[in-house]
């Protein structure tokens, strides 16, 4: 036998076919799970983006020209004693993300197909059709703006958990902006004179929408990625997004003979519950941080002051829309109160005070 033929042939490569040191080590063992056992989400996510403070022996090996490394803690003004602590509440990894997104797509497609087949769009109230073209058509751009802002933000986070939570947020927002676009396009196939261009025109020119556009462009123009994530979920969504989606479209539509639009729009409410849970968890951790909590709390209040004022201005400018449907099923003042209460409740859960912004 030659020297190269001395290897033993192992009969099986299957787990348990031999016992030796390490043969029972069948869990990722390099991070501290949040619970007693690591979740599948944690196994898929934690430490994939490395960190010189954990295992990155050689440090980041490419810098930007000014010396900033590949990932840098200064990309947000918020501070953390442990950026790795955060886990997304919705526990999304690719499989669950596609399953959920695909289920939503299926739900929306069924509603639209069956509604169209039954001739539902033809029975929409005429005044309501104009609301859909002008205002739902305008609002789709707000969703797109948040989608692109979070798409930008997902590059900057210091850990994989933060960046992936922002990434899925972006994916949901971009899908919903397209959902609305295609839904309106399909209504146009069934409703004569349905103006698909009106929405963008109102978004760009109608005074009713200028406060919203300014608020969205401010999010898009913000260079602090966690400020973008905060404003999206903690400020704009409760004060303007939900106000319009739930407080207007979903409450008004049925009374205008429209059962389709609330179902399409409801998907965004479900998306938001998950994005909100993730965002609240992150900002709550930062406010509780033993070293930086107070700094973070003050910063969140300042962000709330700045962007909350824009959001409230946007909300008030939207008020005339509530008068446009023929059947008035909801009052703006009532839904605005609800929106403010929602924002207060979210802020309380995170651990900061919004009285300065909301109780003017």
């Amino acid at each position, binding site marked *: 036998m030659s*020297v190269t033929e001395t290897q033993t042939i192992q009969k099986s490569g299957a787990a348990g076919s031999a016992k*030796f040191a*390490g043969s029972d080590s069948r869990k990722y063992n390099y991070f501290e799970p949040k619970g007693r056992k690591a979740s599948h989400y944690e196994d898929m996510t934690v430490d994939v983006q490395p960190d010189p403070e954990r*295992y990155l022996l050689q440090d980041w*090996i490419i810098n930007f*020209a000014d010396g900033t490394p590949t990932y840098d803690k200064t990309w947000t003004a918020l501070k953390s004693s442990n950026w790795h602590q955060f886990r997304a509440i919705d526990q999304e990894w690719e499989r669950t993300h596609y399953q959920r997104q695909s289920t939503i797509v299926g739900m929306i497609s069924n509603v639209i197909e069956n509604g169209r087949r039954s001739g539902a769009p033809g029975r929409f109230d005429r005044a309501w059709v104009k609301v859909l073209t002008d205002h739902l058509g305008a609002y789709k751009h707000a969703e797109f703006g948040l989608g692109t802002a979070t798409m930008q933000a997902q590059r900057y986070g210091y850990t994989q958990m933060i960046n992936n939570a922002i990434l899925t947020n972006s994916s949901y927002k971009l899908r919903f902006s397209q959902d609305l676009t295609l839904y309106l396009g399909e209504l146009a196939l069934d409703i004569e004179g349905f103006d698909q261009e009106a929405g963008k025109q109102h978004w760009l020119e109608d005074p009713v929408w200028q406060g919203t556009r300014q608020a969205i462009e401010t999010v898009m123009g913000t260079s602090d990625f966690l400020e973008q994530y905060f404003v999206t979920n903690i400020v704009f969504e409760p004060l303007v997004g939900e106000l319009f989606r739930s407080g207007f479209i979903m409450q008004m539509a049925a009374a205008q003979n429209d059962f389709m639009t609330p179902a399409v729009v409801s998907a965004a409410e479900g998306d938001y519950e998950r994005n909100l849970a993730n965002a609240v968890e992150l900002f709550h951790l930062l406010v509780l941080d033993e070293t930086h909590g107070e700094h973070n709390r003050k910063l969140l209040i300042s962000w709330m002051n700045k962007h909350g004022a824009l959001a409230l201005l946007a909300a008030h400018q939207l008020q005339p829309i509530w008068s446009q449907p023929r059947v008035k099923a909801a009052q703006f003042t009532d839904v605005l109160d609800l929106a403010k209460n929602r924002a207060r409740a979210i802020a309380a859960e995170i651990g900061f005070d919004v009285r300065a912004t909301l109780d003017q």
Partner: protein
Amino acid sequence: MPDSLTLNKITAQRGMSINEATRRVADLGWTPSYVQEAMTFPTDYKIKKTPRDPMKQVLRSYFPMQEEKDNRVYGALDAALRGDMFRNVEPRWVEWMKLFLAIIPFPEISAARSMAMVGRLAPGEELRTGFAMQMVDEFRHSTIQMNLKKWYMENYIDPAGFDITEAAFGKCYASTIGRQFAEGFVTGDAITSANIYLTVVAETAFTNTLFVAMPSEAARNGDYALPTVFLSVQSDESRHIGNGHSLLMSLINDPDNHLLLERDLKYAFWQNHAIVDAAIGTFVEYGTTNRDRNKESYAELWHRWIYEDYYRTYMLPLEKYGIKIHHDDVAAAWDRIVKNHYVHYTAQFFSVGWPVNFWRIEAQTDRDFEWFEHKYPGWYTKFGEYWKWYAKLSHKGETNILFNTDTGYVYPHRCWSCMVPCLIREDFCYDEVDGKTYTYCSETCRWTHKVAFAAEYEGRPTPAMGRFSGRREWESCYDGWDLADAITDLGFVRNDGKTLVPQPHLHFDDSKMWTLDDVRGHTLGSPLMNFRKLSVEEKEKAAAEYRKGFVINALN
């Protein structure tokens, strides 16, 4: 039922055309007037022409399509277990997956992050949808690969190495090259990194060897899981190639961009070659037990995928736009693979360094020798004796091959640019950058560090270009350390606290497995730190000596 009646005909209704849908979706964007969009990562390129989305897909069709792909992947993984795949899998192959799957999820998610960089740079909104889908694709790839790795860990005979995977990725001397790959996608000039390096070169050219050629070899070794996952991953790449090409076309029409394009195509092609061919070439050629003479060697695969498919049909046509293609680099890369034994030297290096790996490498045998000699004439003379030494020194009690001076092997310098060692000794070079000496595997890698990654290029200011940083020579991290202490620090010790994760064999038997005590008493050193201590004349002499190479001593 009449022949003409189908469910589709009953349920079909008039819908929007694909063109109309993509046009409407592209119209979601607008030019902000209250606040300008935040500055993103900088670029020295000018992008005047609005890129087009060649795929014309919307998220409504994308998500169900991806879910269906996932269902097939996860169904196949279940089927593999029911069919007892691991009973017949080749451990030689799966061991290399500990390295490969430690490396790849970070480059994948880096590609997702890089979509933020190009998404905002490209004018118009049409391609932003393509970038958004790529972002979610890359999220898919990163986590689906983490899942596959977990699946191997749970079902393969030896989980050690999979269990420490991301920690090992950050520390290992071999995964360094994967980090160079990943950081290259997201750091520095946004177009250089996220468009040219990532999509135009890595995804368009080298994913074919990564995600198509390598899975074929997996299947030959009884591993049906890797092809299932990676061919599904590769099916997303056509979208990414489309994104990259579309943005490239919007750049190439402006002659002001040509100088930078030529720089970046040169850098990106050479570094992709240096990194991907080192790693994937080794997995395909040395991780397999299949020695079918009729199958293509890595060199033949390279010729098909990189030379014929990429160079001839993708790179060459770019010349008609007036940019210079570096034909000589393509020829040089080919020569390195077929004439200069690049892949074989890499495998030799990986195996010499086995004590600081986190996977097992077994010796090549007579059967392997015959195949290598058939595919790479002259291989046996160059490498046969080495692998005999490796087999001999794989037994516990021998002096490990890294420190065994009987073999004649000379530990290589590390290339500061591609981070693969300087394995083709005659091409070794060194230079000074900002007053410090660095070593390189080739002239092009020297050029990459000194000329391309700099504040100006051929007289043109390039303020957006990145810089090499960090402790790029892995060996300097453990200079002066005892080997056993370094392994402990790396965390490459099994859960009994003494047996090494890496082993130079496939014996799943404690009595044959090396422990810390078996490797203690040898001191690691940094070739670069030692080289820097030399005078100018001594450096030149040492370099000349290095370029002569080494001869493996005959095993008596």
